[in-house]
């Protein structure tokens, strides 16, 4: 059997080189994309975690609070606790650098404490031998930079570096290095008192790193210390930040992995098509072997080995390709594939034997699964009948499976009702797979229905094409299954992306009502506008009104920090509400204050309109009533909007992050922008027009979906391969038929047109079924997968024009591909063709 396996089965892969090459290519692409996505994300997560662990040092627990920080009395209290061996206070800031792109992460540390808990942050002065220099770290303008930061900023010890606090520009002296930070971490370190002073954070901390006494139980002490902390301040193990980041990006990573899995499944369909056609062509060969004594099981094993070999070699090529893609992706788009989850992380590629083995196995499984039905078909063949020609109709008379199809579709509908598991919409993905399976199972019925439409066609070539496809609808199933899968994927993604992009565009126009926007820095960085600066802008000529917005983060339990947005709401400033109301909320004394929460927050905290939400502001919990739920595409982890006046009353914080400026009618935007720059200085503020913000936001959106577009292109390419290989194989197996037609007077090019017409009809059925399946899958993606993954709702939008062009192009390309692939078969003389036994 071993010799038979090699000579009869595996050698057949070498004989049909084109089909083998395309199958290998399809499986290689599926495996490569899947593994590359895994490699990229695991490398990025590893590097992110490594950075987090490095900066946490030897801390057992970390006390963290909102972005604005918390009172440093918390540190004093913790340092005095008997179970705390060491406590190190930290003020972590994202310092805006005036006149430069980006910001610098600065850690304000207590020099006498940090060495015990996070020694990597220990600064090293320029000249270690001089005692005066040794205390340079305590100077109020001394900043120590890691090697990566010095390299990025192009500064050396002794140089001055300007940082921004509010709209003030302050020069700091580069006093030395942070050798423990390694080469990858771009950060600066300064004395905590100096940092508080420079950045107007007197008495504020953002973190306290804690080392517990030897033998202490961390979980117990975490609970005990938590009870002592003010509202909004949380105590967490250092690895929590890592798992929060992993959790935040998990849905995105799973989404991409699922997309690549569909590419691999499409590759499996291609193996199915090529193997089934190969079985049709080799029926007499198999019948002869069976007559010689080859048993059914050996025949099945041999054919499965062919599929397995295709999968193995394809996946091996794919694995090698994956490492190349990963290296390229790290160089071109970074470690997050453009999604922004791991910004600033510089991951490195490592060989991962476990992951690589999984994708090799998946490739083999795709190959074997693709070969399964053809092998079963070959085993069912009756040798005596197959030795006579012309019984291939039995292979192509694939039966309808509508009860199974209906079961699949009903199962998908039921699964859509189930909740996510650990934030991942697993049932949604299974529903997508079931819809796809249902669509493929419906293909024979769809083919029969489609053929009845052409029953009365008059042109002879269309008649012949119709007769062939009606006679052997399985041919449509074989060639069309890959098309259905790829079109369904492409169409569902196109509808989802179009709906998402349209909704984001609409959302941007709602959240950007002002004529222009002024800010001193991003909300995460150290720039802000004070009340006087806001007043000066408001008083400028041509400005009708200004609307201030203040951002902070909120720590609600151990979750990733949620965003607090304080801004006017009840005055009619638009908020993209999906439920509740904004302007009709009347607040009488004694009532709870209103809060409008994002869909993500509503989902994560299971809140609805009218529910009570406790928000920790200025160290105290305050009860708010949910007045509305709004759509927020900017923050996946949740956001809450409260009235700016309420926020200021409760916190006493008068600062502003973003200022929306409404211009008086007839005012020149350019003139107002110049006036604002003259008033506050050009280097310390950023002025943006709504159109610019919108364009940048949509560019980020498109970059995030770049990988998705790539997957769509791959899926469509594989679908076209399916049509092409199927018709190439069919053209070869139908040489005798074409020979007879030539005898009867059909021109060579007319036979090409006949093949093209059959391919066009096949592709049209595949495209129609794929489009319907794609539309159904898009509903699952929009309503279930996206909603459960990212907590975003969106309005369904069908890009009908785009889809029509796509469908028509695919049908045309399929016809061309079939015509081209049939050319080879028609080179053979009609005389020789009819001489072959029918």
């Amino acid at each position, binding site marked *: 059997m071993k010799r038979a396996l090699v000579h009869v089965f595996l050698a057949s892969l070498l004989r049909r080189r084109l089909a083998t090459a395309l199958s290998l290519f399809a499986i290689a692409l599926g495996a490569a994309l899947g593994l590359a996505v895994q490699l990229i994300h695991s490398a990025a997560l590893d590097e992110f975690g490594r950075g987090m662990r490095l900066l946490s040092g030897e801390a057992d627990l970390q006390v963290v609070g909102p972005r604005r920080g918390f009172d440093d009395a918390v540190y004093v209290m913790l340092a005095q606790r008997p179970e705390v061996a060491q406590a190190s206070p930290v003020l972590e800031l994202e310092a805006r650098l005036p006149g430069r792109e980006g910001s610098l992460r600065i850690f304000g540390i207590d020099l006498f404490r940090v060495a015990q808990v996070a020694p990597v942050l220990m600064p090293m002065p320029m000249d270690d031998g001089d005692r005066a220099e040794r205390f340079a770290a305590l100077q109020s303008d001394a900043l120590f930079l890691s090697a990566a930061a010095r390299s990025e900023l192009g500064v050396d010890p002794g140089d001055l570096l300007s940082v921004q606090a509010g709209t003030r520009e302050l020069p700091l002296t580069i006093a030395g290095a942070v050798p423990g930070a390694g080469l990858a971490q771009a950060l600066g370190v300064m004395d905590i008192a100096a940092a508080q002073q420079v950045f107007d954070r007197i008495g504020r901390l953002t973190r306290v790193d804690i080392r517990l006494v030897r033998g202490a139980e961390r979980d117990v002490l975490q609970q005990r210390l938590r009870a002592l902390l003010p509202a909004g301040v949380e105590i967490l193990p250092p690895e929590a930040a890592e798992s929060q980041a992993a959790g935040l990006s998990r849905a995105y990573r799973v989404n991409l992995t699922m997309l690549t899995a569909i590419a691999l499944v499409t590759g499996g369909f291609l193996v199915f098509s090529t193997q089934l056609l190969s079985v049709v062509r080799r029926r007499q060969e198999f019948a002869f072997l069976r007559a010689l004594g080859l048993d059914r099981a050996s025949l099945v094993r041999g054919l499965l080995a062919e599929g397995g070999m295709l999968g193995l070699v394809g996946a091996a090529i794919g694995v090698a390709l994956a490492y190349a893609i990963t290296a390229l992706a790290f160089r071109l788009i970074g470690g997050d594939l453009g999604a922004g989850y791991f910004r600033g992380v510089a991951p490195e590629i490592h060989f991962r034997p476990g992951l690589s083995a999984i994708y090799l196995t998946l490739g083999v499984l795709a190959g074997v699964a693709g070969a399964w039905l053809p092998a079963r078909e070959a085993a069912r063949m009756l040798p005596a009948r197959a030795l006579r020609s*012309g019984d291939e*109709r039995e292979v192509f008379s694939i039966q309808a499976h509508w009860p199974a199809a209906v079961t699949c579709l009903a199962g998908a509908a039921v699964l859509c009702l189930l909740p996510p598991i650990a934030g991942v919409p697993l049932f949604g993905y299974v529903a997508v797979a079931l819809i796809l399976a249902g669509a493929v199972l419906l293909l024979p019925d769809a083919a029969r229905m489609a053929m009845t439409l052409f029953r009365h066609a*008059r042109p*002879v070539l269309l008649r012949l094409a119709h007769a062939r496809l009606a006679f052997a609808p399985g041919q449509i199933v074989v060639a069309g299954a890959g098309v259905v899968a790829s079109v369904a994927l492409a169409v569902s993604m196109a509808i989802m992306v179009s709906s998402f992009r349209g909704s984001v565009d609409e959302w941007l126009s709602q959240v950007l009502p002002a004529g222009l926007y002024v800010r001193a820095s991003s909300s995460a960085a150290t720039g802000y506008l004070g009340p006087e600066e806001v007043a000066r802008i408001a008083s400028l000529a041509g400005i009708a009104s200004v609307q201030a917005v203040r951002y902070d983060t909120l720590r609600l339990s151990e979750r990733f920090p949620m965003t607090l947005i304080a801004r006017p709401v009840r005055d009619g400033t638009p908020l993209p509400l999906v439920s509740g109301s904004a302007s009709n909320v009347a607040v009488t004394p004694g009532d709870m204050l209103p809060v409008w929460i994002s869909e993500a927050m509503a989902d994560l905290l299971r809140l609805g309109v009218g529910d009570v939400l406790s928000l920790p502001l200025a160290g105290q919990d305050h009860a708010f009533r949910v007045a509305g739920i709004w759509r927020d595409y900017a923050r996946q982890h949740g956001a809450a909007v409260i009235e700016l006046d309420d926020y200021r009353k409760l916190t006493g914080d008068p600062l502003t992050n973003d200022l929306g400026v409404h211009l008086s009618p007839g005012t020149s935007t350019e003139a107002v922008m110049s006036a604002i720059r003259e008033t506050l200085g050009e280097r310390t503020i950023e002025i943006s027009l709504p159109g610019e913000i919108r364009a940048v936001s949509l560019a980020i959106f498109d970059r995030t979906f770049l990988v998705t577009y790539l997957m769509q292109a791959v899926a469509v390419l594989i679908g076209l391969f399916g049509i092409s290989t199927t018709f190439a194989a069919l053209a070869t197996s139908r040489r005798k*038929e074409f020979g007879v037609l030539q005898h*009867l007077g059909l*021109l060579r090019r007319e036979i090409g047109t006949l093949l093209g017409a059959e391919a066009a009809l096949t592709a049209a059925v595949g495209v129609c079924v794929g489009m319907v399946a794609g539309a159904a899958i898009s509903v699952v993606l929009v309503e279930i997968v996206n909603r459960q993954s990212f907590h975003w709702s969106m309005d369904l939008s069908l890009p009908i024009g785009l889809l029509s062009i796509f469908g028509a192009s695919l049908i045309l390309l399929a016809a061309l591909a079939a015509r081209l692939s049939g050319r080879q078969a028609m080179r053979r003389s*009609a005389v020789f063709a009819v001489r072959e036994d029918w």
Partner: protein
Amino acid sequence: MLEIEGLSKGFSGTAAQALFSGLALTLAQGECVAIMGESGVGKSTLLNCIAGLEPIDGGRMVLDGTDLAALDEDAWALLRRRKLGFVFQAFHVLPHLTLLQNVALPMWLLDVAGDEAETRAHEMLRRVGLGARASDWPKHLSGGEMQRVAIARALVHCPSLVLCDEPTGNLDPERAREVLDLLLERIREAGAMGILVTHSAAAAARTDRVLRLSRDGLVEDRDGA
């Protein structure tokens, strides 16, 4: 009328190694001839040359006044469509067309209106004894029935010349006799010319003339054996 003069054809298209050369043949309208000869002498190749399916190396062929040597590939295809009919040893009835569709196919190619094409195809099937089975699929037919369909297909569009390559080679003697009767009867009824390549002396004897192809050329076989 078919006139062939000085026809030559080499092995694999090379005139240097002649398969046959200087062949001459004239067929009057309504005449049916048999061509006999040893295997490999070029009988089928001669048919293919006459049908324009294999290029010739020299000579002249005129069918109903048309100089066939001047035709390009497309013109040959159109000529086959209008003027030729074929009957093969292996039947070559298309399995995905019904019997009616198989017989109507030559008329579809000539753009004969749908109803007329089907009426004529039906009539032709009736004449070969398969009128009641017009909507059947070929896989339900015996070999003899299959060849009847092929005969109907070869004659339905009233060709000038019917080329038959061992039409009874796959049939038992009884079926072969029936099919040959039918074939010659229909060719004569249609007033077409016929060339029958066969190894069977009995079959050849049923035609108007018997020719023998050999290395010496195409000569009349007056013995018919």
